[in-house]
């Protein structure tokens, strides 16, 4: 019993991490049709930004309020990077989806290499604030506190995004744009203006995921983003791009399948089980679980 609880909560923690990455990816893909390979780079920037700030930024530190400041710094760095990428790289290539993908592929190779050049290829130990060290007891299982933190953050992000989507004017435009971009443009609204916003939100969420991923894994490496990104892509494809809820459900499903299969069978089989789930979903319900629109419009 306690093992099952532990696996569920750990799975939810991993699912939370996937959700942080995939929510931004799916927003970007849904609205702009950009398959953003640079998302892993935003994640790495968030992780390294937080790590650097915790060690070197005056006022910030590896613990307590200092860590919050470091986290804020990391997220700000990721947001800034995402905004710059949208303005300088994606914007001039509007309407040319192949080129946009190629440009983000180039960035996804260059940015980790840059991080590696500055801080080396070896994993760096990520600071762990006292508040998330140790475990809490739940139904007889000892659950690491950082998993709980991840889940709380993901729930908070979900709520925030949901409020943004349903209560603000920009959210309305974004939602309508995901449904039918041509129609929104025809109604006289410049959807492109919201592109930068969506990219910034996605970048911030990815950077947050990078920093929290640092807590989850205990270390940061330049290439961490890429391996997480692949699972986030799978989540986006399974969850579809039209609804936030679909994305959340897909994140949790993928993570739980992965955790349980990895624990009860051979390690590594969980990752493969996820791929099988993806293949089944794609072949039976094209365009994902919650999607009315298929993911096939591009390329």
């Amino acid at each position: 019993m306690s093992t099952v609880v532990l696996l569920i909560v750990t799975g939810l923690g991993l699912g939370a991490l996937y959700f942080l990455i995939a929510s931004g990816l799916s927003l970007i893909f849904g609205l702009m049709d950009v398959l953003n390979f640079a998302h892993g780079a935003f994640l790495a920037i968030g992780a390294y930004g937080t790590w650097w700030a915790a060690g070197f930024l005056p006022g910030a530190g590896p613990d307590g309020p200092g860590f919050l400041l470091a986290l804020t710094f990391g997220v700000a760095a990721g947001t800034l990077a995402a905004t710059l990428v949208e303005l300088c790289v994606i914007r001039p290539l509007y309407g040319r989806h192949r080129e946009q993908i190629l440009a983000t592929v180039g960035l996804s190779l260059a940015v980790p290499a840059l991080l590696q050049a500055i801080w080396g290829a070896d994993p760096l130990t990520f600071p762990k604030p006292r508040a998330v060290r140790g475990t809490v007891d739940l139904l007889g299982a000892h659950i690491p506190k950082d998993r709980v933190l991840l889940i709380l953050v993901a729930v908070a992000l979900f709520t925030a995004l949901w409020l943004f989507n349903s209560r603000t004017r920009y959210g309305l435009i974004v939602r309508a744009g995901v449904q039918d971009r041509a129609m929104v443009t025809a109604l006289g609204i410049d959807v492109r203006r919201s592109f930068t916003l969506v990219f910034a939100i996605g970048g911030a969420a990815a950077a947050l995921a990078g920093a929290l991923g640092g807590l989850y894994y205990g270390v940061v490496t330049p290439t961490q983003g890429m391996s997480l990104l692949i699972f986030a892509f799978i989540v986006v494809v399974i969850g579809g791009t039209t609804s936030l809820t679909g994305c959340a459900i897909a994140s949790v499903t993928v993570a739980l399948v992965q955790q349980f299969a990895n624990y009860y069978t051979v390690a590594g089989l969980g990752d493969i089980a996820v791929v099988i789930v993806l293949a089944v979903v794609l072949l039976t319900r094209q365009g994902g679980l919650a999607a009315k629109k298929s993911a096939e419009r591009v390329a």
Partner: protein
Amino acid sequence: MITETEPQAPTTEAAAGGRTPRPRRLPRWAGPVAVLAILLTLPFSTITVPGLFHGALNSPATLHLLAFCLVFGGLATSYDLLYGRVGLLSFGHALYFACGAYVAALLMRILELPLVWAALVSVLAGTLLSLLLGAVALRVNGIAMAMVTLAFAQTGSILVARDPGRATGGEEGLSLNTAMVPDTLVGVMNTVNLYWVAVAYAAFATVVVWWLSASPVGRVWQGIRANEQRVAVLGVDPYPYKLAAFTVGGGLASLGGVVYLLVTGGVTPTITTAEFTLTLLVMVALGGAGSRWGALLGAGLYTYAEHRLRQLGGDSFSALPDWIAAPLSQPLFILGTLFVLMVFFFPGGLVALPERVRSALRDRRATRE
């Protein structure tokens, strides 16, 4: 769009030839023959090219680097068959390459099969694998297909890294079992023979892709790339054609894997990763997707540049301040950045460059007149 350069090229060429006959134009076979002749005479020349290569052209180090470039040239050509000719965006090409290399290495290691049989079986395995996975992946289109291929390749990558039964060697990879390889392909002294193998592979891949693209199947591929729905409306089911391209591409890639195994004398899990496929995409886009020489040129230049930058990285930039020197010592940083710039300023790749320059000059002349 990058992908639209090729179909127009022959027609514009023919039209230009019709209006203003240019006697200087060489026959179509002249280019390939010249390139092949240069490649075949290289090992016999003792010329040194200062700055480009260490040592003479026929020194083992240079030949090894050239063989490497050629292997990637052939591999990129097989990827271009999917990306440039048919317009399929696959993120899983590394899987078939790795399948060729790993299966061949394992067969020679565990079953102690001689090279020829190991190569044959592994290429067959790679072709079958791409047929099977392609049949699944091609059920969906566009980005969804790209994601499925990525996921399949990731599975392969995980499998290799987990080292089931201590067979794949995990992070360390596998070394070539030289006892099963003919003596003429082993050792530094025989680098030239490896070079011949690499030339043969690159030529074979190129010829297959050119020949298929010129065949009736190639016409359908062109149609699929331009507008798949229209092909379907015309009564041709695109699915078997796409699957054929996927399978041939996968088979050529697995053959490339075997050649890679011979040239490097081993195989490591880096060739199974998604990043590896992304570098293939970069190579093809760099040279010019769907063009005659693009993939070969892009792959050759990329491989050469990465190799040289790695060599230069350590010492050449030490005079510069640290914050410039550190990023410059990372080949991927330089290549990635250059690639992004290239996407901006030279869409269509290197092969489209002369035409762009020419048309720019023509425009300028026109405005002056």
